[in-house]
């Protein structure tokens, strides 16, 4: 029998039992729709985490003082004081994969303006820091190289600090804020960035030249960390490796000895947090897959019923010239049609449900084309797999017995 005729016969058989066909498909529809929706939720959470991490900086690679682990014992790194200007220069000289580079020092204390005060962090850096951290100056200006050299008492101010010291929407440029008794002239306002993945307010800070913070506020000569940007995303691994080499050399660490510093990159952060949502995605997908499997078993069940019910039809078809494989194909195509049609409806429903969840619950959802293609493929496989046994049963009937079947 031609495939077009087989299709015609199969469609005809399904049309004869519209309600039953629809109910049978329902299992597949619900299964596919839930797989698509669950994967969309998982993907959405992954993407939102990646987006938030990427707001932390541009292809960020950073060095923290102290090793996080020494001989299996977790060490704090607050006491480590071993990263200095010398290391900065070494990295600048030996790391071609790095574009921007800045030290970071951080003081904690109260910012004071007239009778108001607010607990905030004072960050010290050089002028490249803004690029690395994706911070933009909203109004005013950033400090200059010259001001860094001269340890000028100038600072940039974040929106949260402005709100608490000067009131919302105030323009504090030109005013002076005191931090640990040192007066800082406000020369610029930072554009608000909002809260990051970890719930930190990224606008609650003052930013000043690192020299000023080191010498005038903290009276130290070391940095807490060095922040840098790799030339591009693919170079972050190279950059981290180059930095490690440069620092080992500058710290004169012997072959085989542990690092006394820690290098982390944004990539690592992304992959750490992505792996959490990957687990979530797999879990959700697996649960939804079970309903798809149940849908497939539903098809098999109905196909068996259908074969028994149509035994005489099968006998007749054989008597008028239907071969075993014609009968097999007829029932197989019926079950494939059921599952694929159910799959297509399920995909549409799944996309719709994902969008609805996005709107109603405010969850980010992302429907991956791959999950649509995969669902479609799985449906076809289900149709063949669960249709095969009933179809083979039909094809192996003896026409004489089938014709006389009551």
């Amino acid at each position, binding site marked *: 029998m031609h495939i077009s005729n087989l299709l015609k*016969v199969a469609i005809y058989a399904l049309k004869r039992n519209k309600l039953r066909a629809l109910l049978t498909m329902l299992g597949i529809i619900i299964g596919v729709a839930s797989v698509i929706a669950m994967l969309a939720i998982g993907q959405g959470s992954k993407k939102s985490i990646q987006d938030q991490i990427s707001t932390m900086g541009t292809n960020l690679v950073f060095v923290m003082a102290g090793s996080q682990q020494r001989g299996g014992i977790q060490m704090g790194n607050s006491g480590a004081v071993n990263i200095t200007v010398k290391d900065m220069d070494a990295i600048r000289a030996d790391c071609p994969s790095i574009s921007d580079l800045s030290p970071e020092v951080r003081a904690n204390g109260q910012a004071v303006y007239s009778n108001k005060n607010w607990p905030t962090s004072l960050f010290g850096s050089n002028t490249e820091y803004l690029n690395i951290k994706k911070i933009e100056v909203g109004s005013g200006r950033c400090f200059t190289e010259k001001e860094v050299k001269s340890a000028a008492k100038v600072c940039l101010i974040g929106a949260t600090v402005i709100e608490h010291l000067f009131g919302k929407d105030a323009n504090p440029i030109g005013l002076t804020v005191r931090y640990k008794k040192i007066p800082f002239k406000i020369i610029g306002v930072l554009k608000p960035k909002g809260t990051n993945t970890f719930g930190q307010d990224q606008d609650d800070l003052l930013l000043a030249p690192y020299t000023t913070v080191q010498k005038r506020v903290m009276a130290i000569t070391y940095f807490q960390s060095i922040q840098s940007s790799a030339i591009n995303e693919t170079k972050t691994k190279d950059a981290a490796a180059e930095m490690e080499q440069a620092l080992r050399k500058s710290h004169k660490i012997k072959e085989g000895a542990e690092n006394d510093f820690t290098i982390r990159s944004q990539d690592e952060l992304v992959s750490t947090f992505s792996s959490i949502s990957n687990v979530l995605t797999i879990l959700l997908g697996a649960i939804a897959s079970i309903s798809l499997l149940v849908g497939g078993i539903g098809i098999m069940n109905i196909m068996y019923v259908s074969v028994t019910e149509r035994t005489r039809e099968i006998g007749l078809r054989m*008597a*008028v*010239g239907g*071969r*075993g494989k014609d009968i097999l194909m007829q029932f197989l195509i019926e079950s494939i049609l059921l599952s694929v049609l159910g799959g297509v409806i399920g995909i549409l429903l799944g996309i719709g449900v994902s969008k609805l969840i996005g709107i109603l619950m405010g969850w980010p959802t992302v429907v991956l084309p791959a999950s649509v293609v995969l669902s479609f493929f799985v449906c076809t496989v289900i149709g063949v797999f669960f249709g095969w046994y009933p179809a083979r049963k039909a094809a192996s009937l003896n026409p004489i017995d089938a*014709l006389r079947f009551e």
Partner: protein
Amino acid sequence: MVGLENKAMNKTIIEVRNLKKDFHVGEVTVRALKGVDLSISEGEFVAIMGASGSGKSTMLNILGCLEKPNAGDYILDGVDMAKLSKDQLAALRNQKLGFVFQSYNLLPRTSALENVELPLFYNNKVKAKERRERAQEALAAVGLSDRMDHMPNQLSGGQQQRVAIARSLVNDPVVILADEATGNLDTRTSFEIMALFQELNSKGKTIVFVTHEADIARFTSRNIVFRDGHILRSENVTDRFSAIEMLKNLPVTDDIETS
């Protein structure tokens, strides 16, 4: 009388020699056919008769290429069926045989026309347009041109059997095999169906008609009686009935009372 002078022996359509068929039911072997010889020529209208268990159904299954004999030869229109595979037998049935069953075996919720088209679906040489035309012709030949789009449940028993006959004609078979084709019908409708068979036969169709009713067998041209797996006798019908004449003599208000 219709088609009585069929004695001018034409081509042999069915040639059966020393046919044997056994069935194994548990440990018991039932010998359904014990060496049957039979020859049917083109244009014959043969009734195969016999009590239940006589082997006539087995004979029909083998003649219909639905079953292979254990021994002996069966040559259908020059083709030795013993040499054919299952699929080749299916193709042979599709091209050379037409079946009419006692219980019509029409597909439910499928129009008369589509029921008649069915055998042609399994013939790849026939395109959709030709399939439709041939089905329409076959339905016209059984007098159901005005019922083509009716579903089986909208047709009377006699009309359903006519659809089934149209289906057996649509592939232009060399022989039509009918299995108790009037078994489910009342007398009048039975006669109408036999009239149709006689008409088809007079146009040259070879028909093999299995029945256990002696008066139905009187409409055919030759009666072959089976008993215990043998042919008991094979005799030409001398005073053959004409179904059309018989219908005229039936009282019109047989079932329906007009008051």
